C-alpha cells in the first residue's frame, strides 16, 4: 500500500509564477469562506456577525491577543515536528497522543520532584526533559512498529492516540486522583512556583514564546539547508532508492519520529506549565491534529507554517466567542477543515490545468 505523500511531477514552470500561486490560494480561501458561511446559515446564524465575533474574540483585547500567541506556541511546535515526519514521507497521525504523553510525563515529573525542595526552575527544567522523553517514547512506538512490524504509521499512531488518552484517564481516575473524589476535570494543580509566569497584563509566558521561536528556526534550518534535511527529503520521496544510494533509512525514519516526538513532548510540557497546570483527559487540546492540517497546508515550507499556525490559533481562540451566539466551538474545526480541503482541491485543479497546457 502506498500511503506516503509522494510529490508528483510538478512541472517547473509552476514555480515561477508566485502571483498565480497567490491567486490560487486566495480562491481556496474564498471557497472555504463561502462553504462555512453556508454552514452558518444552516445553523441559523448570521455569517458576518459570526466572523466579526471571531475577530473580536481573537484580537479584541490584549488578553485575547496574547492568548492567541500562547495558543500559537504549541501549534507551531507541533507543526515543526510534523514537518520532519512529513518530509520523510510519514503521516505521524499519532502526534496528538505524543503530546498527551508529553503532558503525562511532565506532570509525573512534577509529582516526583514536588517535595524534594529543589530549585523550582530546575524542577521545571527536569519536567520539560521528562515531557520530551514521554513524547519521544510515544513517537518511537509507531516508528518501530512500522519498520519492524510492517504496521502503517497511520494506524499505529491512531491506535496509540487512543491508548495515550486512556492512560491519562486511568491516571486521573486512579493513581493520580485528587484527594477526595476522582474527577474528570483532571489531577491536582501543580504548585505555583512550577507555573511559568505570564508577562504582566497578558496571557502569555515569555519562556514558551522563546522556545517556539527557537524550534521554528531550528526546523527551517535543518530542513532547508543541511544534508540531514536533504536526506530526509530523499527518503520521503523514494525510500528504496535512498537506501540503495547509501542513506541508512531505518535510522532516519526513527530520527524523524524521534524529533517529532521531542517537539510533541515539549508542546505537552508547555501546555501543563503554562495553561492547564494539571493533567486532563484531553491533554493534547487537539494541537496534534491541528498541526497536521497546518503542515498539509504549508506543503513542507517551514516559514509559512508560522504564519498559518498563527491564523489557525486566532481561529481557535476567537471561535470561543461564538458561544454567545448559541453556537459551539467546533466551528473553528469546520472552517479549518474546509480551508485545507479546498487548498488540496484547488491545488489539484491547478496542476491539472498546467499539465493540459
Amino acid at each position, binding site marked *: 500500500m502506498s500511503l506516503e505523500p*509522494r*510529490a*508528483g*511531477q*510538478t512541472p*517547473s514552470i509552476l514555480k515561477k509564477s508566485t502571483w498565480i500561486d497567490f491567486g490560487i490560494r486566495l480562491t481556496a480561501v474564498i471557497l472555504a469562506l463561502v462553504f462555512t458561511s453556508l454552514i452558518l446559515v444552516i445553523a441559523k446564524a448570521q455569517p458576518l456577525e459570526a466572523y466579526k465575533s471571531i475577530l473580536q474574540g481573537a484580537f479584541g483585547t490584549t488578553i485575547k491577543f496574547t492568548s492567541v500567541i500562547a495558543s500559537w506556541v504549541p501549534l507551531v511546535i507541533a507543526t515543526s515536528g510534523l514537518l520532519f515526519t512529513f518530509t520523510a514521507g510519514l503521516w505521524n497521525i499519532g502526534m496528538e497522543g505524543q503530546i498527551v504523553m508529553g503532558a503525562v510525563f511532565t506532570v509525573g515529573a512534577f509529582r516526583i520532584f514536588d517535595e524534594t525542595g529543589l530549585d523550582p526552575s530546575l524542577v521545571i527544567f527536569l519536567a520539560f526533559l521528562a515531557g520530551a522523553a514521554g513524547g519521544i517514547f510515544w513517537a518511537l512506538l509507531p516508528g518501530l512498529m512500522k519498520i519492524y512490524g510492517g504496521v502503517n504509521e497511520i494506524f499505529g499512531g491512531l491506535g496509540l492516540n487512543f491508548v495515550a488518552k486512556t492512560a491519562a484517564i486511568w491516571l486521573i481516575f486512579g493513581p493520580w486522583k485528587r484527594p477526595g473524589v476522582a474527577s474528570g476535570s483532571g489531577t491536582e494543580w501543580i504548585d505555583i512556583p512550577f507555573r511559568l509566569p505570564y508577562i504582566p497584563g497578558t496571557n502569555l509566558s515569555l519562556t514558551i514564546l522563546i522556545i517556539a521561536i527557537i524550534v521554528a528556526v531550528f526546523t527551517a534550518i535543518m530542513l532547508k*539547508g*543541511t*544534508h*540531514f534535511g*536533504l*536526506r530526509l*527529503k*530523499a527518503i520521503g*520521496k*523514494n525510500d*528504496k*532508492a*535512498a*537506501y*540503495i*544510494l*547509501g*542513506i*541508512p533509512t531505518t535510522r532516519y525514519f526513527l530520527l524523524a519520529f524521534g524529533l517529532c516526538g521531542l517537539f510533541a513532548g515539549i508542546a505537552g510540557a508547555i501546555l501543563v506549565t503554562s495553561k492547564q497546570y494539571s493533567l486532563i483527559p484531553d491533554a493534547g487540546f487537539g494541537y496534534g491534529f491541528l498541526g497536521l492540517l497546518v503542515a498539509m497546508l504549508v506543503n513542507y515550507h517551514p516559514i509559512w507554517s508560522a504564519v498559518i499556525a498563527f491564523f489557525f490559533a486566532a481561529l481557535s481562540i476567537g471561535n470561543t466567542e461564538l458561544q454567545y451566539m448559541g453556537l459551539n466551538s467546533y466551528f473553528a474545526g469546520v472552517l479549518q477543515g474546509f480551508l485545507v480541503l479546498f487548498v488540496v482541491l484547488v491545488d489539484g485543479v491547478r496542476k491539472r490545468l498546467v499539465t493540459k497546457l
Partner: protein
Amino acid sequence: MKISFQHINKWFGKVHANNDINFTIPSGTIQGILGENGAGKSTLMKVLTGFYQADSGEIFLDDKAVTISSPEDAVMMGIGMLHQDPLDFPPMKVIDNFLLGTRGGLFPNRKQVEKDITRLSQEFDFQINPDSFVETLTVGERQQLEILRLLWLGVKVLILDEPTTGISANQKEKLFATLLKLASQGLTVIFVSHKLEEVEQLCSRVAVFRQGQLVGEVMPPYDTDQFVYMMFGKSVEVADKSTFRSEVPYIKLENISLEDYRLRLRDINLEINCGEVIGLAGMEGSGQRLFLRMLTGLMRPVGGSILYGGHNFTGRTYPVFQKAGVAYLPAARLEEGLIPGMTLTEHFILSEEHHELFVNQKSAIDLTEDRIREFYIKGTPASQIEQLSGGNQQRALLALLRNKLRLILMEHPTRGLDIESAIWIWSKMKERCKDCTSIVFTSSDLDEIIQYSDRILVFFGGLVSKPIDADTTTVDELGQLIGGKGW
C-alpha cells in the same frame, strides 16, 4: 483479415513517432515488424490496438475504414495484442484471467470456460491448468495463456510485441510452431521484434522501421546485411571485446544457498576475479535477482558464506557491503535507483560522502556540471530526474557511482536503450574494470551477455550452471541451458 495503414502520423510532443506510415498486411501471413527501440513500431501497434489515436491517417480492415478508439474496440474488431509483459493478473487464477473483461451475464459459465481452456491447451500442446494461479506460471506460460485467451475471444489478427524476451528455447519453438499453424488457418500474425534471426526464421514478409519511418518492405529470401543497413542506416560498429580479468580472486562464494517463497538455489560456489565481468543468463525469475541481491547484502543467504577480499561478509547488511566498495544498479530505475522529484544536483549531493552539517550548493553544482559533461547527460543541474529520458537516467545512475569500487552489480543495464547508448555504457563500465573493479550483471539479451562477459552463469528453475567461458560458448548453447536442456 487484411490490414491497411494509410498516412498514419503520430506525435508525442516534439517526437514524430510515426511519420506517414503506409503499408498493407495481407491476411493469413506472418508479418515481421523490425526496428530498433524507439523506431516507432510499438507506437504503430498501439495505434492499431486502440491504445493511442493517430493524429492523422486511416486504418482499413478488409478494405473498410475503421476508427479504433479503445483496446476494447480493437478486440471487438478482431485485433488482439500480446504485450511484451503479458497484461494479465498475477494474483488471480487462470480461469478468472480468462473471464476478466468478457461480456455476458452476471454469472459466467465457469464449467464451460474450463472445458474451453483445456481443449485449446490440448490443441496447441500447452499445459495450462485453469485452476492454478497466474503468478506461479513462467513468462512463457503466461504468453501461452494470453494467446489462448485472445484466440478464444475470436481475434483474427494477433500482434506479438517482442514475445521471445524472457522465454525458454523450448517455449520459443512451441510459440513459433503455434504461430505458423495459426497463419495457415488464415489468421494474420504481426510479429514485432528487433531480433533479425527470429524475424528471418518466422516471417513471410518484413517491414523495417527507423526513427518513426517505414524504410522499406522486404520479402524472402532475406539478406541480413540489408536488414542491418535498413535498421541503422549504416553498418553497426561492433563493440570491443576487451577483457581486464586478472587472475586475482577477490570475491569467494562458498556453498551459498538462497531461498524465497518460490525458489531455492543450492550450494553455489564461485570465485570472482578482479576486473572480471560475469553475465547471468536465464529466464526472468530463475534466481538471478536473488543472486545479485545476495551479492549486495540486500538478501541474506540461508547457508554458505560470502568472502570479500578475505573478509567474511555473511549476514552483513547492504551498508556494510556498500562501504566495502559494492554498488548496485537496479533495473527499475525510477523505483529503486533514482528519486523522482529531486534534481540531478540533489542526487549528486546525496551520493557523495560528507562530513559537514550544511550543504555546499556551489561545489555540488560544480560537481554535477562536471559529471553532466563527462557522461553526456542531456539535462541541467536543476533538471528533475524524472524529466530525463530513459537513456539519460541510466547515464545519471552510472554518474552517481562512487569512484573507488570493487564490485558493480547491474540488472539489465541497457534495457530500453538504443544500441549506441548501450555500447557507450559498456565502454564506460569496461574502463572501471581496468582498475580491478568486477562486474556482475543480468540481461535477457544473450548477445549482450556473450559480448561483454568473461564468464557466464546460467540460471534455470533454481539450478545454477558452472561458470561458462564466454569465448567458447554460443547463443545456441546458452539458449538450450536456459530452456532446461543439457543440465
